């Protein structure tokens, strides 16, 4: 087997990574922890967002396209 083919083969097998050994349903305990959620503290996030858009003069930094109209 050529050097390039071998590299491609090894890269394909290793880069597959998590897709070859998926997380089993009973192994999801660590993923269920509050600090593993995308947004672990919604209240704090809301406060941070408010401060951010007030200082920046922009609205909807997260989720929507916004501009600096100063109407917040």
């Amino acid at each position, binding site marked *: 087997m050529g050097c390039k083919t071998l590299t491609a083969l090894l890269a394909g097998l290793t880069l597959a990574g998590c897709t070859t050994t998926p997380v*089993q*349903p*009973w192994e999801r305990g660590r993923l269920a922890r509050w600090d593993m959620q995308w947004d672990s503290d919604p209240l704090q996030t809301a406060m941070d967002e408010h401060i951010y858009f007030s200082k920046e003069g922009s609205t909807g930094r997260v989720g929507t396209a916004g501009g600096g109209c100063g109407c917040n």
Partner: protein
Amino acid sequence: MQLWRFGVLLALVAARAHAIEPGSVAPEFNLARLGAGQPIALSDLRGKIVLIDFWASWCGPCRESMPLYDKLRAEFAPNGFEVVAINLDEVQTDAEAFLARHPVSYPVGLDPTGDTAKTFGLVGMPSSYLVDQVGIVRARHTGFKAKHIDELRHQILGLLGAAHGL
């Protein structure tokens, strides 16, 4: 050229445990019991209808399901019904903390490595299997909804009726 891809795919498929479906023989397990007492083995419960419930402290629906299973057990235990909960927490203290808040009277086995779960081929959490008096799986429920209790009651009554030749 593409043979190695096929080989990898075949290996992945072959490595999957055969999921236990209604009609299969329930696999034997022998697990340490939470709290004092002898290990729990499925073969010890032959002759009883057994509900095997795979749960974990991080499983939200289990907060609802486990007290309901406890009630079901109280209702049918005199007729030969037992519930065996198999805990899949990696840390035992998490399970103990859960049971301190939601105590149950049925035996709890410990499977921190998930080997029994793999043997049964769980596809979701929680999962429950109703096993009849001779060790055949009669029902499998993945996830928990309150209506599962009614279905289980109906199935248990059916199995008890069949045992008495009704």
